[in-house]
């Protein structure tokens, strides 16, 4: 299957806009795990009408923002190994307990990046099949979290669709994704295909279909 290549792709939502859409979909009092990279932006867009508790799989519940330079502690880091802080009411635990929170279905939402998402909710985001394979906690998160959200650009850097009929890369999980947030649209994974929840105001459904492998519908 040769993927189409959109080198003159439309400009979609900025990352901050995508992040705020996810932030608005996280209910008050949710326990949330934000993947490394783009998903980390979500926490900056939570409104005052709700309190969200962030989990970092390296044994930190109640994660706070990045510390000031003079407050950095190399023993207080997130899953991306970057210095963070802990908020009042937070707690530390060991790795088995931390993944009990994940595997046991206690994390309400996790937000992850993607290389590919298929129509049946398969996710590929850990290996291109080249280089050193490194999975981290992604497989546990997608298998365990109550809701798995994907945050990603709609197209790869090479202009190929990330939303596909069937993943070609090694899977992270099978049938695990519930919703995808891209710069072009918010899309639910349903039995009938990619269901458009919201489409970028500058794009048509026809265009969205051309940059997506597999049926999109409203």
């Amino acid at each position, binding site marked *: 299957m040769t993927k189409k290549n959109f080198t003159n792709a439309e400009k979609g939502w900025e990352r901050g806009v995508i992040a705020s859409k996810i932030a608005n979909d996280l209910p008050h009092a949710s326990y949330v795990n934000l993947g490394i990279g783009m998903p980390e932006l979500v926490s900056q867009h939570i409104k005052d009408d*709700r309190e969200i508790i962030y989990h970092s799989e390296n044994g930190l519940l109640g994660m706070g923002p990045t510390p000031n330079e003079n407050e950095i502690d190399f023993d207080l880091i997130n899953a991306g190994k970057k210095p963070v802080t802990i908020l009042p009411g937070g*707690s530390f635990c060991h790795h088995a307990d931390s993944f009990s929170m994940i595997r046991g279905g206690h994390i309400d939402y996790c937000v992850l990046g993607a290389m590919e998402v298929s129509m049946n909710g398969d996710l590929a985001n850990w290996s291109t099949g080249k280089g050193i394979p490194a999975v981290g906690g992604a497989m546990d998160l997608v298998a365990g979290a109550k809701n798995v959200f994907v945050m990603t650009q709609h197209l790869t850097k090479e202009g190929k669709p990330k939303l596909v009929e069937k993943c070609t890369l090694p899977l992270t999980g099978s049938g695990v994704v519930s919703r995808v947030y891209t710069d072009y649209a918010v899309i639910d994974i349903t039995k009938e295909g990619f269901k458009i929840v919201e489409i970028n105001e500058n794009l048509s459904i026809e265009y969205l279909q051309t940059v997506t492998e597999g049926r999109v519908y409203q």
Partner: protein
Amino acid sequence: MQINKIKTEIAEMLSDVFDGATIMVGGFGEAGSPIELLHGLIDHGAKDLTIIANNSGNGRVGLGALIGQKQVKKVICSFARSAKGITFQELYNKGEIELEVVPQGTLAERIRAAGSGIPAFYTAAAVGTPLAIGKEEKIFNGKKYILEEALNADFALIKADVSDRYGNLTFKKTARNFNPIMCMAAKQSLIQVRKLIEPHQTNPENVITPGIFVKKIIEIDNPIIETNAIEEGMIYP
């Protein structure tokens, strides 16, 4: 808006309990036994309950009282025999209550497994005994093990020592016992706590049960001590 799991009425704590529910009850003997919540469950009146606990109650207080009220159809526990376990004994002898005996460590691990998303695990405990009958066997490194499945619950009634509004719990001495793992295994863990504190007073290094495993909290600052209550002839309700 701030997260606040604290309730002020026991009825509010138990508002979602339903007939036929599976309910874990924390405690080992009387240490860590949530007596006030159990009395609330008697007032609530839910029937046909399955109780998962280490023991089956003493006297007519707490779990003993709940069983005496005939609200329990089945008890899953490791040790249902007790000199003061009058209510269970009576119903058991009449064949009016079911009992599933589980080795204590297997009981603990099945509960922890439920909370950890592990549907089943192998253990050597009970291999070659009557409690292994009907269970799948497998050899690892030349030794025989049996497969034990996770034990889930709809609710857990828990006694803790201190909590903040997030439900970050600490326990007192051996009153810890089954309480932390039951918080993990139940869909709703309902906590009676001796003392409430502010979140900034919680030391993140010393939390035993993180709030993620807690649904509702109520302060009961001077809980009933079972031994004393039985000595004084207390009968609930």
